[in-house]
């Protein structure tokens, strides 16, 4: 603005949030220029903590290289490697064996020529894991692909997709791709959901309600019991995404659906292999007739290459380990670790409603996000920082992902670093 006279220039990264650069009116693509200016401001201030190459596996201690070339040894609280299977020796060996046997890539769509025997082994193993008669598994090359493929093939124009307000982007994108009408209900609020269902159920259209086992932002469980009850009352279908809970939640690791005993009522169960399995990919577990249909009509499956064989071999081994004594021990340990970290943080910082291995620490003002992420890294800790609009205004969070592999000392160091940061950045209780 020519009328504006600059008095005090604050760095753009303490003024703007990423959503503000997402779109611009007009023909000139001003959002690209503004975003790059913001990014350059962060980089030139040496506070850029995104996209750092890791020089080590996703273990509790990692080495990363920042954008200006300096390497940092960090305690890792930002990985989804919940049970440590991403770098478990038996998982690595299984992946190597599959690599030797089947080659690097599947080089084809699963429906056409990309399905290998090892994929069928994984389908059978996962189906047996859930154990319901007449059910099956459809494999996808990513968790994102599973959600968009499943939602968009199950729901069509004129139908409804009703999502929890905290739903993952892949569910939202699936709803958009389906061309159904998207409705949001207040997070975990079954009464609110019922108000929506009561009205739209009169239209006699297909309705899919989508929720998650554990929410990756708040670390709380989905209110599965109440939401399943309401969904069934109105004749709607329910999808539960167990991305952050499969292999971890429930006595045998089936997920939140096991913990809350709703497996028999769930129509579509989505799993992800990039978290507790330590690999990459996703799956749908549902009645076999639905699996058959999705295998043909989920576009993200049909038009993507099948899971690569080595990863599939590793996932199979991770599943085998997770369903045996190793898995029971790791599940016990991750819960103890998360409880321990929460006990060290409670009453010192605001940890919201976390009940799981995802622990948000609410620091509030999003303008602190970039400096705070840099501060924590220089103190030797890698966390995931989330700001508006990914979380509510003035409710920005540091996310700590606890794993079964963290030691007591690492958890105590983590708590100390967070409490110090809270004092430094004025969010201590």
């Amino acid at each position, binding site marked *: 603005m020519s009328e504006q006279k600059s008095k005090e220039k604050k760095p753009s990264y303490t003024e703007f949030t990423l959503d503000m650069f997402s779109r611009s*009116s007009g023909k000139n693509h001003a959002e690209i220029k503004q975003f790059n200016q913001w990014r350059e401001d962060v980089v030139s201030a040496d506070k850029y903590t995104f996209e750092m190459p890791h020089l080590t596996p996703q273990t509790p201690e990692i080495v990363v290289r920042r954008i200006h070339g300096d390497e940092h040894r960090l305690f890792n609280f930002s990985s989804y490697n919940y049970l440590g299977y991403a770098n478990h020796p038996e998982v690595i060996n299984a992946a190597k064996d599959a690599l030797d046997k089947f080659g690097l890539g599947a080089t084809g769509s699963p429906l056409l020529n990309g399905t290998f025997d090892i994929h069928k082994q994984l389908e059978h193993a996962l189906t047996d894991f859930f154990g319901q008669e007449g059910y099956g598994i459809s494999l996808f090359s990513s968790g994102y692909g599973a959600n968009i493929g499943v939602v968009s093939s199950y729901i069509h124009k004129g139908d409804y997709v009703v999502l929890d307000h905290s739903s993952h982007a892949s569910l939202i994108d699936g709803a958009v791709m389906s061309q159904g009408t998207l409705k*949001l209900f207040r997070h975990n609020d079954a009464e*609110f959901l019922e108000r929506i269902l009561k*009205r739209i159920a009169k239209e006699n259209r297909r309705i899919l309600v989508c929720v998650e086992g554990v929410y990756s932002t708040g670390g709380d469980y989905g209110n599965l019991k109440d939401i399943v009850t309401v969904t069934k009352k109105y004749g709607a279908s329910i999808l539960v995404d167990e991305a952050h809970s499969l292999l971890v939640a429930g006595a045998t690791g089936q997920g939140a659906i096991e913990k809350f005993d709703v497996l028999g009522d769930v129509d579509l169960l989505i799993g992800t292999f990039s978290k507790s399995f330590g690999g990459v990919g996703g799956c749908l577990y549902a009645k076999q007739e639905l699996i058959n249909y999705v295998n043909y009509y989920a576009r993200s499956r049909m038009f993507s290459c099948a899971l690569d064989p080595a990863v599939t071999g590793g996932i199979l081994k991770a599943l085998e380990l997770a369903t045996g004594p190793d898995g029971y021990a790791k599940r016990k340990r991750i819960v103890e670790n998360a409880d321990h970290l929460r006990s060290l943080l409670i009453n010192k910082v605001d940890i919201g409603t976390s009940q799981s291995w995802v622990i948000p620490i609410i620091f509030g003002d999003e303008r602190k996000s970039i400096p705070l992420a840099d501060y924590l890294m220089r103190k030797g800790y890698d966390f995931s920082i989330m700001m508006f609009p990914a979380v509510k205004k003035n409710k920005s969070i540091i996310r700590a992902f606890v794993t079964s592999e963290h030691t007591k000392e690492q958890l105590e160091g983590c708590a100390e670093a967070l409490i110090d940061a809270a004092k430094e950045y004025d969010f201590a209780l």
Partner: protein
Amino acid sequence: MTEQVAVDNLIIWEFDFAMTTFYEVDTDLITPLLPKQISPMEIVPGVSLLNITAFNFPEGGLGHLPNFQELIASIIVTPDLSRGVPKFAMYVFSLGSTCQKHLDHSADYYKLPSYKKLEYGKINRLDNTLEFGDTDGSILTMNNCSTNIGDFLGHERYFQAFVLQDDNLFIADLYLKAALFEHQDQGDAGIINNHPFLKGLELFDEERVPYLQMLLEPGTRGKQFYYKPEKYG
């Protein structure tokens, strides 16, 4: 941040009460209200934001006008980032005021879509509740939908306002300087009635979810630096 310098095309508005609520609404519902050159800024595809803002301008807060209340309805739209990075860009589609002179001036100078003179703008500063209405009845009630109130943070923010007059689209730059409590609690924010003020926009109960709300710190005054609109596109 930047400081305003008084120029011919700038008017500074001073207010002593402000409450603004952004409501989630179906994009399909609000699209007919928008000119074709601009698009809603959806929070997720299919869900847009309706904004309703209420002000109290004390006597002298806006030129020589007496104390009056104002109610503005807008849709949050894609900004034009070539002019700067605003907190929000809005397309204003209805303006009501308890002061006819203010309405006339707003239509003439700011090209704002004057609805008509409102009969009342009842503001309860202690409870942060309000009700606006006219001869057609109550337009809405609005209240603080957070379970608590505070922290009031100093905000100096840039906004953009699009308006349509005689099929011509205009854009205005605005700066707001105020101590605001900004939150996203989703409690009860009041009732929006199906009223002509909303230009045919009818909302179902469950779609009146508040997405974001801002309140001016009681006992303080805020300033709005509002530039004359320019023809857009």
